[in-house]
């Protein structure tokens, strides 16, 4: 965090305070045209943690991410991001807060009329970063997603997987403290999905960025929970005989069903859950 967000309602939070949850939902509900989408949602995400959001299609996972970024306002409840209450925060202050949040959209949401470089550098251009510095950072971000060769292409010239990687580069360019991934592998083939999950994992394990990952693909979720990124060898399973017993301790799960949270806990708790709906979903 670089700048304090003026919000008289919020307590003063030390940006380096590791104990303050990065994301905190308290009794949040939202409905669209009187149809409830989320009801009484409460959870928190600690610094450095990865929270995987699971649930059937249409259960409100994407809405939850948009609430976390202030793109939607809840009907009731409280949402605190980096300790700041965002439900009552004016849009102008939300724009400043979002400088610390990266978001990868379901369909990438790249700007059609801008090339890859301008898409990735969008935030830097808004912040009036000098052109040579912006270019260097774009190249660095594109190298991270292994797409440096596509710097001068337009989104219409890219495949679905490449668009998703550009979207990830755009989200990480400003080194955000929180990244929200909305179905980063949705609609992609299994091989491309693995590449995208590896990038999510790389960001988690290299930069230790707090993240919320929406997915409806269980295999992606479990790969994230049981693998770690190694700079030399890429994605590798966490040894079962090691201290973490094959599971990444910083990766947790939140399951939604019929507008409510039905599970919030660790990977181990999830796989050993006796809840019949969860068992059916996992099987």
């Amino acid at each position: 965090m670089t700048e304090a967000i003026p919000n008289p309602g919020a307590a003063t939070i030390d940006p380096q305070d590791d104990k303050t949850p990065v994301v905190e939902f308290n009794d949040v509900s939202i409905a669209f045209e009187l149809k409830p989408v989320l009801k009484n949602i409460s959870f928190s995400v600690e610094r450095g943690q990865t929270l995987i959001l699971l649930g059937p299609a249409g259960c409100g996972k994407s809405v939850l991410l948009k609430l976390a970024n202030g793109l939607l306002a809840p009907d009731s409840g409280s949402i605190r991001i980096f300790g700041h209450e965002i439900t009552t925060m004016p849009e102008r202050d939300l724009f400043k807060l979002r400088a610390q949040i990266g978001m990868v959209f379901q369909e990438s949401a790249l700007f059609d009329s801008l090339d890859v470089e301008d898409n990735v550098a969008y935030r830097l251009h808004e912040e009036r970063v000098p052109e040579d510095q912006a270019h260097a950072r774009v190249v660095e971000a594109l190298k991270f997603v292994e797409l440096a060769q596509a710097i001068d292409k337009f989104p219409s010239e890219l495949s679905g997987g490449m668009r998703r990687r550009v979207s990830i580069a755009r989200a990480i360019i400003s080194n955000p403290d929180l990244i929200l991934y909305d179905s980063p592998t949705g609609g992609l083939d299994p091989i491309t999905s693995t590449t995208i999950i590896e990038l999510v994992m790389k960001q988690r394990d290299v930069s230790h960025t707090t993240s919320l990952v929406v997915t409806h693909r269980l295999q992606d979720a479990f790969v994230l929970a049981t693998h770690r990124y190694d700079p030399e060898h890429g994605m590798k399973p966490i040894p079962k005989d090691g201290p973490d017993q094959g599971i990444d301790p910083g990766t947790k799960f939140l399951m939604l069903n019929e507008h409510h949270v039905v599970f919030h806990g660790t990977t181990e708790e999830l796989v050993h859950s006796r809840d019949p709906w969860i068992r059916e979903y996992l099987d």
Partner: protein
Amino acid sequence: MALKSPEVFLKQKILAVQEYSTLCASAISALFTRPRYWADIITQMDSIGVGSLPIIVLTGFFTGCVLALQSATALTSFGAVSMTGSLVSLSMVKELGPVLTGLMVSGRNAAGMASEIGSMKVTEQLDAMRALGTDPVRKLVAPRLFATVFMLFFLTIIADAFGIAGGALMSVTILGLNASTYLHDSYRGLVHGDIVQGLTKPVFSAFIIATVGCYCGMKTTGGTQGVGRATTQAVVISSVAIIIVDLLVTRAMIGIFGS
């Protein structure tokens, strides 16, 4: 399609008016505060102003031609065919120039704005813009509003000029009038109030075109079909609003200038 109850229908309409008013207020406020997107303003001025020039020139010119021919038919019966220049210039400057320019630009640009912003809305580009810390009203609406108001003013002057020129061509070649007499009569027929009236209308029309086009775009839902619907709505609403506001401005100007 399910029928809505009158209560729900009314609530939706009132909400739409409220959202439109908020958008207009935010766009005006964005014009007077930083940051301003000058590059976008210049791009929009080129697209709206320079891009609309051919249709405005053609519309103005041929309207002037038709006006001269039609009015000459009526004026001949009173032996006042020499008044054609005055009638054409008055009609073009006070009414036809501003309204036709407004309607043509509405058809071209309100539709363009609604479809462009609507496409961005349905592909989540507007949300992405907000997520990247940019206010879409400031980035997309304010430049279009400024560019439309600025350029429509000059497009109207061009349409008026070409309308009078078209009338001159018909008067000289078909009606056998003297070119100097026509132009002198056209000039003499106009007073200060006519010019003010003719140049006040495009400011209102431009405001309607830009804000309605952008509003319809930003409220687009329902994928590509929704984009088509938003585009149609933008043209219909802005065209009707231009004609209604034209009446109100005309009445106000008559009240102020007396003619």
